[in-house]
């Protein structure tokens, strides 16, 4: 189960995720991002309440990162331990901006 709370103000967008980002829920995030990222140059993903991320979730992050690389910045904030470990293992720490 994944809850997405998005706050979009002109060029700044904040997506707060809660729950699990996996095969079942990843398409929802992908859709939400696709809908909201037009003209956004500063994307923040708040992972404070994200419990788990699977490879399908990583794919969405990768896609978003690539998309944002062309027009601005994307950063992840308040990443939890479990999720951070997954980022470490998969090497995503190298391509993502994690604060």
């Amino acid at each position, binding site marked *: 189960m994944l809850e997405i709370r998005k706050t979009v103000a002109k060029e700044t967008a904040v997506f707060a995720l809660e729950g*699990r980002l*996996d*095969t079942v829920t990843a398409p929802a995030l992908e859709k939400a991002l696709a809908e909201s990222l037009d003209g956004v140059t500063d994307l923040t993903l708040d992972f404070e309440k994200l*419990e*788990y991320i*699977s*490879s*399908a979730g*990583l*794919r969405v992050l*990768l*896609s978003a990162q*690539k998309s944002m690389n062309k027009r601005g910045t994307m950063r992840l904030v308040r990443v939890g331990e*479990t999720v951070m470990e997954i980022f*470490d*293992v*998969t*090497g*995503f720490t*190298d*391509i993502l901006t994690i604060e």
Partner: protein
Amino acid sequence: MKKVLGITFGRLQRRAVGLVLLVLVLTVAVFAVVSAYQSRMLVKIVGETRDEQQSAISQTSEATMQQMLEATLIRTTSLQANVADNDFAEVVNNVYMLQAMAQGLFENRQGLLPEAFRLPDPSMEGTPSAMVLCEAGVDYTQSEYLGTAAHLSVPMIAMHRISDKIDGLYIGLADGTDLCVDEKPRIKLDGNGEPIPFPVRERPWYKGAVEAGGLYFTGIMKDAFSGKLVVTCSAPVVADGELVGVVGIDIVLESMADFQSAAANGGAVFIVNDKGQVIISSDQTGLFAAAEANVARDLRKLGSEELSQFVDRARSETTDLELLTLDGREYYMVGSPMPTVGWAVVSAVDKELTQQPERRLLGEYDKINVDASEQFRSGAARVGTTIVLMFAAMLILGALAALLATRRMVRPIEEMTQNVITCGQTGGLFQMKDSYRTNDEIEVLAESFADLSKKTKRYIENITEITREKERVSTELHMANQIQSSMLPHIFPAYPDRHEFDIYASMDPAKEVGGDFYDFFLIDDDHLCLVMADVSGKGVPAALFMMISKTILQSCAMLGRSPAEILRKTNEALCSNNQVEMFVTVWVGILEISTGKLTAANAGHEYPVIKRPGGRFELIKDRHGLVIGAMDSANYKEYELQLEPGTKLFLYTDGVPEATDASNALFGTQRMLEALNGAPDTAPEQLLKNVRKAVDSFVQEAEQFDDLTMMCLEYRGKDVQTNEN
């Protein structure tokens, strides 16, 4: 369906008929209640009207009767009083005349010659004649008065002839003789023809007149000879200061026929004298009957003050119609005076009698009423019977009509129901029929059925098509899975002739085809390449991506490149044409079999697990590079591990630590290590099974979400092989 009288009733029809009957019965019930109420009201009104009418009749009748009585009784009574007074006045005049004549004769008797007189003569019976009577012991022949008195014979006979009310006239003389004029000489003689002695001076009329000194009326008394009831009017004759006799006239009461006729009216008419005695009455035996003077009662002393006052009043004036209660009975009474004699004529009518016509009228009216009520009742009963029959007819006809109407309505529905059931059983198409064309909801329903039937058929066809398609896809996926599995080394023991190592691997995809894969192959005689990878995503796209990755990895490895180079080359190849942003985590290692030296590189894959001889399974926190396919610029570092004989290397995909139970808890690497360490010295195949078992018991009912792929290498080294050889 239920059969009644050979007709089959559907439940719908029974309900409809029941409804109609219920409405009819309710209507009838309401009607019956209203009718009963109206009928009761009518009976009540008739009864009340009857009472009112009877009361009105009673009052009107009584009033009318009283008016009639008042009018007639007062008139007749005063008339009768007049007549009676006239009659008595005539007698009184005659008495006065006789008195005057006698007085004149006796005062002048010196100059008169004695007139002849004689004893009663039977031959004169029926004709008025003068006769001599005398007291016992008196010799009439010696009488000094008779000769004088006999001069009155002619006028007395004349008087008797003129008046029919006079029964007899006489002059009683002081010497005990009497000259009498009447038509009945015989009764004054005994059987021998001798005159019967007559006590002249003892007679009441004689004594009364002498005592009164003037005009005197006796009460009723019996005639000395005939025994008839008479009233005598008498007056003393005094000549030269000396009483010489008394003149008297008998009035025959029977002669006053008017009083008799009055009795026919149901009332009584009577004369009451100054003593309150009834002297003449039409009433023979009742309250107002006349009686002889010596026994006659004074009406004023009967105990009724009312009557007493009435009698006194009646003697002075004509009274109103008065209602008096005597001896417990009510009488209408009118009295009128007879001034000449100071008496009164009284008419009395028993109220009971006046009410008789009213009673007859009421009785007659009541009879009519009772007859009318009876007719009304029987009429009402007839109407009631008619209504009951009508209601019965209504119920029967209503039921029949409802039956027919509902049959018409229900039959198409029944047919339709049968049709639908048949269609349901045979899967045939529901067809419209002419009998459904009822031009109402039934037709709409039938059309809807037909439409629905067509749609259902089409839907079933679609579903069949889709199912067929799905089955085809499923079959193809299954085949793909088989192809995928067959592409991975799956025959164990994989290298039965190589004793330096043992290897075992398994893959359980979550869906038909998964994105995980393992691989191992000999690059040359001394180098074994191990690959463990996990493609992001699932299903066919992941499987295809996996195929490419596997092929490229193997190709690079076979070219003799180092693990880091293999990863870099593969990454470049996959990034160059990666439209879907899929990526794959890869751990690749190359074991130099002769030395046990393992060179490995990790592109975002799970930590490998190692168990050194005598030790426990533990994670190797190796360096990680980025997943393959994400960024074409990614670089990979490789590392070396020296494997001692007896070392076990366990590789897996994230499906193992990330297996989740129903409450979303992760299996985790800790549980995985525990499972491995449960029996650390068993063969690779058994180790994999142990892990699998631990995962299954952890996950329990929850769906397997990710692929479960594991591989285990046991390095035995040259020495083992040598020993075994």
